[in-house]
């Protein structure tokens, strides 16, 4: 590949990222406009900048608690998913046992069930165990699709660690838990990061189950948005501001794992 050709081809990703930015730009621009300006007609940039939309969100508890609730159950889910996935991924990567392949495929099939299918049964199940409208309920429900993914990713990363490491540690007299935490975990740090990233991502973006399993106390931000969109007339500016704020946690998380994203799945097994 010659140099000039490389320079030309970089136009493709540039154009693509521009296309990605357009709707996001529009959302952000909208969030700084007054409702009057939005409804009066088209303007490429906000004519009169206003922070009122953001002020409403940061001063109204139903709004900002939506964000706090979402962050609580997403973090809880990420911790649970990665913690239980670690030993399981180790078992899949190091040992063969009765039914291992079937179990692995079965785990993956749980990503295939449409969430819409599960909405009502989930509501009944979590009401029955008296967890309805708690952060834990949403965190546990999201385990359905996040644990299989975490096992899948971690298993791929563990496969890349030579088995000699385990054997040497055993010879050196390390107990299994001590070996796992002090030697094995640090060597798959990147994998843990990538798995946590994907768990965070899929829990953060999911709405249907989160909305079904909560009423007031653990209501996610996304549900607050849908309610506002329908009840308070159609306040586009406020909706846009709330939407803009939901992008920020994701952006922060991506920034931290940017060097690992590309590697994440590449080491996974198929």
């Amino acid at each position, binding site marked *: *590949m010659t140099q000039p050709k490389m320079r030309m*081809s*970089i136009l493709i*990703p540039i154009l*693509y*990222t521009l296309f*990605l*930015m*357009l*709707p*996001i*730009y*529009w959302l952000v621009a*909208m969030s700084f406009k007054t409702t009057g300006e939005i409804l009066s*007609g088209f303007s490429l940039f906000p004519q009169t900048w206003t922070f009122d939309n953001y002020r409403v969100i940061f001063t109204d508890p139903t709004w900002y608690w939506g964000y706090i609730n979402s962050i609580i159950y997403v973090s809880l889910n990420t911790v649970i998913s990665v913690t*239980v*996935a670690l*030993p*399981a991924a180790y*078992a899949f990567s*190091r*040992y063969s*046992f*009765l039914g*291992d392949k079937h179990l692995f495929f079965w*785990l993956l*099939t*749980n*990503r*295939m*069930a*449409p*969430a*819409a*299918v599960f909405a*009502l*049964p*989930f509501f*009944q199940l979590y009401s029955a165990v008296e967890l309805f409208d708690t952060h834990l309920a949403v965190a*546990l429900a999201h385990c359905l699709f996040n*644990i299989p993914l975490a*096992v899948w990713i971690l298993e791929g990363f563990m496969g890349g660690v030579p088995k000699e490491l385990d054997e040497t540690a055993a010879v050196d007299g390390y107990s299994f838990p001590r070996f796992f935490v002090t030697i094995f975990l640090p060597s798959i740090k990147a994998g843990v990061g990538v798995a946590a990233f994907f768990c965070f*991502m899929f829990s953060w*973006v*999911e709405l*249907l189950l989160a909305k079904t399993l909560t009423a007031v106390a653990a209501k996610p931000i*996304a549900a607050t948005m*849908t309610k506002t969109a329908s009840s308070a007339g159609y306040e586009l500016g406020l*909706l*846009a501001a709330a939407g803009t704020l*939901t*992008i920020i946690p994701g*952006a922060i*998380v*991506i920034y931290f794992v*940017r060097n690992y994203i*590309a590697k*994440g*799945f*590449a080491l996974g097994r198929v």
Partner: protein
Amino acid sequence: MKKAYQKAWFLVLPVLLLVAFNALIPMMTVVNYSVQETFGNNLFFWEGLGWFEKLLNSDRFHAALGRQFMFTGLILVIEVPLGIAIALAMPRQGIWVPFFLVTMALPMLIPWNVVGAMWNIFTLPDIGLLGYFMNHTLGIDYDMTQNPFAAWVTIITMDVWHWTSLVVLLSYAGLVSIPDAYYQAAKIDGATRWAVFRYIQLPKMKQVLTIAILLRFMDSFNIYTEIFVLTGGGPGNSTTLLSIDLVKIALGQFDLGPAAAMSLIYFAITLLISWLFYTLMTKDDLK
């Protein structure tokens, strides 16, 4: 060769219990509903396989299933080649790389209802950026709340916007794992650009592409929130995909029996196609 060790089951147990709790109990509830009829008040009557029979013969189900296949087919045909092309054009190193990776991953981290709301604001005929541009600058009559074709173009564009990056990131991950020596060898042999792609890059991307296609298939086949927020299934029924129809029946009309039967058929179709993909695409490796 892995060591056979049955006690490894204990390591898998927590995962098994948590996933089984979330998967098996709701699934049994769905199976239970699918063979019964209810008139409310917790009164249930045995219906046998009646719902399945009615559903498999109903035009409404066939239409929703057809739209679902059309949607998933279209987005796969667009996103997979487009994603590969963008990944091939990406620089392998330099200051641009982290910039591209971060911006490309961004759409995937936006909550799905916000994606729908964002595209709604973006496409409003008189005040949305795209809507205004189409109607007033290009003079094309574009209103997705009126015109089914415009609605389809919009949902496809939205999904391409939302998920092509997944294919890009995975393909890119496959590409950067190819050692430079391969390219040098190809250059010495005088390989064409196509030959390099066909015999070096594509085989290296095959693993990650399998994952990309599987994930895209499963997620697009189950898509609900984005399209529900954007079009609500309209205009008319033109964008009522399977899951939207399912929620209409289950929560809108509270017809639990038919909705449960539909869920099971839906799940079975997803499972079957995923399994076919999986076996077809990993067939060569097993030989």
